[in-house]
């Protein structure tokens, strides 16, 4: 991945900026430009997108000239588990309710740690669920379902 560019950080940042900028210009085409005097909804976004693409190009060109440090190792396990557990919570919160969604969030995410122990994780999920029900539902009255629609609530 690093062989073709002397500066992978500059390279990928450049690519990301160019992709975002180009996408924004294409999307903004339909919005109506207007003039400087009477700016349309596309005016400011288009100006910004052009600027972003320019910055992206400079970064990209620079990545072949100025050497930089490699990106370094990724925390794939952490990235995957933290994101997945959060999305899982979103999917099941209405159906299953807090008493199931919350322990799952805690257990799945805590698996990302190198020090993961089932016993600790289970204890923590019980403790945090109790704490959240007490504080957020009883104390602050936030509208969260304790048991969801799958249980006929």
């Amino acid at each position: 991945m690093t062989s073709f560019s002397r500066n992978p950080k500059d390279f990928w940042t450049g690519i990301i900026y160019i992709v975002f900028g180009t996408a924004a210009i294409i999307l903004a085409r339909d919005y109506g430009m207007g003039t400087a005097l009477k700016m349309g909804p596309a005016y400011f976004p288009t100006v910004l997108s052009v600027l972003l693409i320019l910055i992206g190009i400079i970064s990209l060109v620079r990545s072949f000239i100025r050497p930089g440090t490699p990106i370094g190792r990724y925390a794939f396990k952490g990235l995957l588990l933290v994101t997945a557990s959060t999305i899982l919570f979103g999917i099941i919160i209405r159906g299953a309710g807090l008493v199931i969604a919350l322990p799952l969030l805690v257990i799945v995410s805590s698996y990302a740690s190198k020090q993961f122990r089932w016993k600790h994780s289970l204890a923590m999920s019980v403790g945090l669920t109790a704490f959240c029900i007490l504080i957020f539902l009883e104390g602050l009255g936030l509208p969260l379902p304790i048991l969801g629609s799958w249980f006929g609530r």
Partner: protein
Amino acid sequence: MELLANLGLGLSTAFTLVNLLYCFAGVFLGTLIGVLPGLGPTATIAMLLPITFTLPPVSALIMLAGIYYGSQYGGSTTSILINVPGEAASVVTTLDGYQMARQGRAGVALATAAIASFFAGTVATLLLALFAPPLAEFALKFGPADYFSLMVLGLLASVVLAQGSLLHAIGMVVLGLLLGLVGTDVNSGAQRFSFGMPQLADGIGFVVVAMGMFGLAEIIRNLEREEDRTSAVTKITNLMPTKEDWKRMVWPILRGTTIGSALGILPGSGSILGAFAAYSIEKKVSKHSAEFGKGAIEGVAAPESANNAGAQTSFIPMLTLGIPSNPVMALMVGAMIIQGIQPGPSVMVEQPALFWGIIVSMWIGNLFLIVLNLPMIGMWVRIVMVPYQYLFPAILVFCTIGVFSLKNTEFDIYFMALFGVLGYAFTKLDCEPAPMLLAFILGPMMEEYLRRALLLSRGDPMVFLKRPISATLLALGVLAIIAASIPALYRKREEAFRGD
């Protein structure tokens, strides 16, 4: 005297049982998250924002403010005891604070940090009370072009302060501005970048972005180097500084407070720049400059007073102009809007009790903090030792519940996850998320002011250079960027950030 009458009003507002309680809750939470590395004021305030909706406006803002300046106190505790800065602004405190701790003077270092912070907090509160009214009056002279240029200055300043490449930081700002425009265009009613999704009609929620990029991304980043975290805490024996210590800390505290207060007002800055500047200046002027980095008490006193002063004076642009100078202030603006208060120069006139109540509460909060941080230091030390594997699932739970209860939609949870991934990717590429977040909240405002400015000037872009206020602000911004890109200074900036 008007000032006294105003402070009196503030005192009577802040000194009710309820507000004292929320002030205490704020500084307590602030110290707690300051002590816990991996959880900063931005994520915490974002998490608590949905809850503040149920509180009266004054209590809500007093508590949120307390979290911010409280975190500056707590951040120094971990810097001194375990050489890990609890907050970005306490990075420099590790240099001499930890060395003092290794020499068995941890207690003195903690006491110095607390005393310095308390003094700086008191002075900054007074400055806020003195300068906010004339500044708010001056702000009434601001036209759309001037507001636009002020925001440009703020964003450029945040670029200069960002870690990593200047170019990437500018890109992050532009990207943030673009993301801020998602949703309904207020002028034409057109839907922009919403992909036909009704959930995006109001734009992407600021809290959602903040929690994703600062809450989730931070957790993933910490998991990456989990084993690096030490939990060897230094023993604390004697808290009391000696007579010699007192003598040596007086001037650094005075200088640190001055530098921190001045730099805190600058848009885009907050507490971090002040701490760095105060440390490097102290190192230059001190008689004991050879001791710096080896446990000089000046190296704790100066940056600790500066970061606390800066945290408080950074409220000035937010309270007087309605323009946030950093992500935390942007959240404060969000909290005011939730409560139905439009931030700006009129807040002081229309809501004097709120305005002065917040200011006076800061001084009371500082008093609480010195009690919390000196006699009760033992409790915080125990919290420092909580292993990260127990901490991060809890942070994740609070983020998720917070973001869900904001609008009661799971859609926001998915977006938070998305911004978590994006935020992590950007930090891996040395692109700091703070400037993007600031740009994100300023985006719609900037477009509106640009539109108005050009409408008034009949489409002539020279209006930004013709108006003296606007021209001055833009010149300052350009100067900051030029200064930061001069090779010699650029290296200095890199060094300063590599301090940890």
